[in-house]
């Protein structure tokens, strides 16, 4: 009988090696523990069951209340994010053309990056009043520094050889920036976008909890806060679950897809 050089692993072993399977099992165990503990506790005001949370989620989705809150939050988020990106682009451009600009970027970033954006909200309320302006202000602060710093780092990491290759082609200066510098710095830019997004999302939900209603509609943070006041705790849990699910979706689906199509495909992952 010939010696077998390869033999398949037992089925359970192969399943154990699969990260998705492991994590799914873990998630199911946690869900069961949640449901079990909440049933034993039997106090929906403190800790509702998973089934109660899910049915609250479905109910407020069907009633249109939760989708409205999500839409409101996303609109605000996009406004703040885009404005933050524009400011970051200006700051990075300044840093790229002069040493003073680079020093300014480094100094401002090291000063303001450790400052949690939400700490600026009281001040913003005085400056911009009880409107969306205040929230957008803290969002810009949340996005600006990490995006500017990472983008600038991306430009600096671009190899001198690649710059010379670009200059060799006889491109115009606009062509050089858009076709060589920006794709070359894309790993840094993408890191900045990811970190900026993470800061912005957390800051926005927190800001909405403190203050989040204008002209009769509010975002997800407000949805959570309002239902706490009405002691509708399953809805509070549903709101939190929405925050988690949406955060996961952006970080693991949207940004992951961009990464796989660009920096991973190009072998430029840092």
């Amino acid at each position, binding site marked *: 009988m010939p010696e077998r050089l390869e033999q398949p692993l037992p089925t359970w072993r192969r399943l154990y090696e699969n990260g998705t399977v492991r994590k799914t099992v873990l998630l199911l165990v946690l869900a069961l523990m949640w449901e079990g503990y909440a049933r034993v506790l039997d106090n929906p005001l403190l800790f509702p069951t998973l089934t109660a949370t899910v049915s609250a989620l479905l109910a407020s989705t069907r009633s249109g209340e939760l989708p409205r809150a999500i839409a409101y939050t996303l609109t605000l988020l996009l406004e703040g994010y885009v404005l933050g990106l524009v400011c970051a682009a200006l700051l990075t451009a300044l840093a790229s053309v002069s040493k003073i600009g680079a020093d300014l970027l480094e100094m401002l970033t090291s000063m303001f990056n450790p400052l949690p954006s939400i700490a600026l909200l009281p001040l913003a309320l005085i400056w911009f009043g009880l409107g969306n302006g205040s929230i957008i202000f803290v969002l810009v602060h949340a996005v600006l520094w990490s995006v500017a710093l990472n983008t600038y780092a991306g430009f600096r990491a671009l190899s001198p*050889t690649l710059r010379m*290759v670009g200059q*060799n082609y006889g491109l115009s200066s606009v062509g050089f920036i858009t076709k060589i510098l920006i794709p070359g710095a*894309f790993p840094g830019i993408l890191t900045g976008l990811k970190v900026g997004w993470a800061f912005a999302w957390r800051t926005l939900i927190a800001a909405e909890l403190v203050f989040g209603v204008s002209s009769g509609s509010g975002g997800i943070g407000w949805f959570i806060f309002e239902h706490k006041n009405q002691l509708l705790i399953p809805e509070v849990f549903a709101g939190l679950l929405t925050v988690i699910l949406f955060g996961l979706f952006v970080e693991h689906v949207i940004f992951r897809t961009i990464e796989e199509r660009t920096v991973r495909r190009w072998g430029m992952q840092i």
Partner: protein
Amino acid sequence: MLLQAIGVTLQYRTADRVVTATRDVSFSVDRSDRFVILGPSGCGKSTILKSVAGFVTPVAGRILLNGATVTRPGPDRVVVFQEFDQLLPWKTVIQNIMFALTAGGRLPASEAAARARHYLEKVKLTASADSFPHTLSGGMKQRVAIARAMAMEPQVLLMDEPFAALDALTRTQMQEELLQLWTDTKITILFVTHSIEEAIRIGNRILLLSAHPGTVKAEIHSAGIDEADVNGRLLSARIHAQLFEDANA
């Protein structure tokens, strides 16, 4: 005479000092020459190449291409670098070559594609046309860089130790391929190296530079083989003696 350097002195700046890389270097390159600049490290040979390319401006002297002073980089003088990261990582092999042709608005896309395929075939990399650079070996990356530079059909091809980072077997193979490409196209090559052996094999004319700062020692003709002269001394031994005679004296 295609390319001329007249009394070129080059300096570069570090954080706290100005270093003179070459002093009063003159040479002239004819059409279809394979002109090699040979010298030990620190003789400023790469800096000379970069100033011919237009990346470094001489503090004294001039560089003339077809009688016109070189002031900035341009597609008529294309550089092949030593570094493997000279290909744009976000473009495939064929896109890298095509982009070099369409970038300055010099060729329409359809013509660029045809020319890119032609030169890719010359370096025998047609099979890798749609691969991204990070999946290629070092030798393949250098082949693409050479194909890209030749596709631009420059007046002079500038090569800055393009094979120095390759293993010995690949290096020898690449030298032969380069000579074959030259036979096909008769392109003018300015080639920088610190290897005497490589200089003899690649060049028909060799410029010897001494180090710190780089000055011209001699210009030598090579027939591509390491021949002995009437006294029985090998060409490589003579070059070695001329390069290092100060150190031995």
